[in-house]
């Protein structure tokens, strides 16, 4: 695995922290309201009082980008948490349950994996309807089959591993064996993968919002901002470029940190 320079990892870690702060306490970064319209100052270019410019309703783009962190990040985080939990439970159930449960779950995963993740998410939204909460569920559902499949494969490898056999050889009871050796080793890679998956989820959340299926205007959300800013691209590039940059910055940082964790994890555990 390639090494990312330490400085870059630290920088990305800092960005993740700053974004998390923005999501929790946007007031730390800006005191301007992200919602209040100011038609007189509509579509002002960056500079002066609005250093990222204003949008078509005269709202401060910087303030909206900062406030948008909450929606984009929390929905992405929620989706990934739900997906990881469900994926872990289903994958472990399939691997340890075996037999019919395994066959049914894995055939179902096969079917879901045959559909693009976005298609699954759209199907869920078609059933549940648009909105922030449903977006989160839709993205979680689209990620679950892949995670479940991976946890199952991992659990099967671990169950056949030399160290589980060694533990059997010591006469450890099955529940102890599962709790002590199978679960931690089978779930470890999932947690690492989930950090990178968080990046994917952020893109997916903003993608659905961009399509008009997620957060509703006027709430600040990066994807929604992009979507409305797109209409003024010819005259006011800043309305669409900065929210997108925020997404990319967030995802790059999360990915760099995730890969670093992955490298550390591989180094620690693989032979």
């Amino acid at each position, binding site marked *: 695995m390639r090494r990312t320079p330490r400085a870059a990892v630290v920088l990305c870690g800092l960005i993740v922290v700053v974004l998390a702060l923005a999501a929790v306490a946007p007031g730390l970064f800006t005191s301007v309201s992200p919602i209040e319209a100011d038609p007189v100052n509509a579509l002002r270019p960056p500079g002066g009082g609005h250093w990222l410019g204003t949008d078509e309703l005269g709202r401060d783009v910087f303030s909206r980008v900062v406030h948008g962190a909450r929606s984009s990040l929390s929905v992405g985080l929620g989706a990934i948490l739900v997906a990881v939990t469900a994926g872990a439970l289903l994958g472990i159930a399939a691997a340890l349950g075996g037999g019919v449960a395994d066959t049914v779950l894995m*055939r179902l995963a096969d079917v*879901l994996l045959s559909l*693009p993740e976005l*298609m699954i998410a759209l*199907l869920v939204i078609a059933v549940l309807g648009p909105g922030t909460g449903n977006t989160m569920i839709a993205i979680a559902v689209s990620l679950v089959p892949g995670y479940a499949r991976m946890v199952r494969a991992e659990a099967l490898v671990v169950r056949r591993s030399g160290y589980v056999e060694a533990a059997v050889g010591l006469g450890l009871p099955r529940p102890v064996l599962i709790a002590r050796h199978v679960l931690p080793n089978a779930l470890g890679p999932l947690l690492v993968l989930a950090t990178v998956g968080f990046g994917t989820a952020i893109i997916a959340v903003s993608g659905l919002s961009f399509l008009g299926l997620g957060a509703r205007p006027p709430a600040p959300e990066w994807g929604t901002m992009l979507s409305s800013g797109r209409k003024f691209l010819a005259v006011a590039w800043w309305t669409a470029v900065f929210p997108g940059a925020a997404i990319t910055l967030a995802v790059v940082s999360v990915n760099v940190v995730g890969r670093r964790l992955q490298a550390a994890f591989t180094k620690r555990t693989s032979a």
Partner: protein
Amino acid sequence: MIRPLLRGAAHRVLAALAVLLGAAGLAFAALQLIPGDPVAIILGPATQASAQVQAAIRAEYGLDRPVLGQFLHYLGRLATGDLGRSYQLQRQVVDLIGDQLGPTAELALAALVLAVAISVGSAIATAGRRRGLKAVASGWELLAVSSPPFWVGILLLTVFSFTLRWFPVSGAEDFSALVLPALTLALPVAGVLSQVLREGLEAALAEPFAVTARARGLSRTAVRARHALRHAAVPLVTLTGWLTGSLLGGAVLVETVFGRPGIGALTLQAVTNKDMPLVIGLVLLSALVFVVISTLVDLLYLVVDPRLRTR
């Protein structure tokens, strides 16, 4: 060589049919999951259909039967290629999809070719080379996979269409209208492919057979081209599903950004309007595309990797 290939082929075709059947079941389940009168759901929220039309739908979908009967009836209709009718657009789903398939196929294929070209070029140029070159490669790969495609599209539009005026802003009329959308769709795919290919190449070049080949007098470039590249391509087989999904899913976003007609735009319209017959038709379509492509790729890999034939 032929017999295991045939056995492998039969196995995969059966698995493919199973997945298709599963997707049909999933779509059917989705219809059942929506609360409310199925007829109202099929008609969509904005309907003013008469009682007569509603009765016709009830009969067409076999909604007066028990659930299992409905499912079998539904499968029977699918088997004859009848995907039902979009009442909102007042057309057969099959026709709607057929009309939009062309532009999307064009876009996806163009993006695929671009992505493969970019990634193979980048991987061969940087695998096992100097650190600086590799850092550049992993840098662009990271950016490519971390940028949302709709934003990339917007950036490209801003620069090339609004500022430089090289390409049209929207539409799908001619080749120049295909360039930016295809590039937008290709970039994230190329980022992942390039990464996988490069790691595969580096792993293959470190294998003893690569040393052996060089000990026979082969040049570095010949070892890459004749030995290592095939090995690097092997892990790509596991990415087929992801690749198909990325191209299809990405098409939804890219077509929206560039205002292109196509399956993506149709999908968005169907989901937004809760046009369930159309949504289900599109779900089945993506399952079909996936199944066909991955079956073909699997068979291709039996040819590429002789070790798979005995397994």
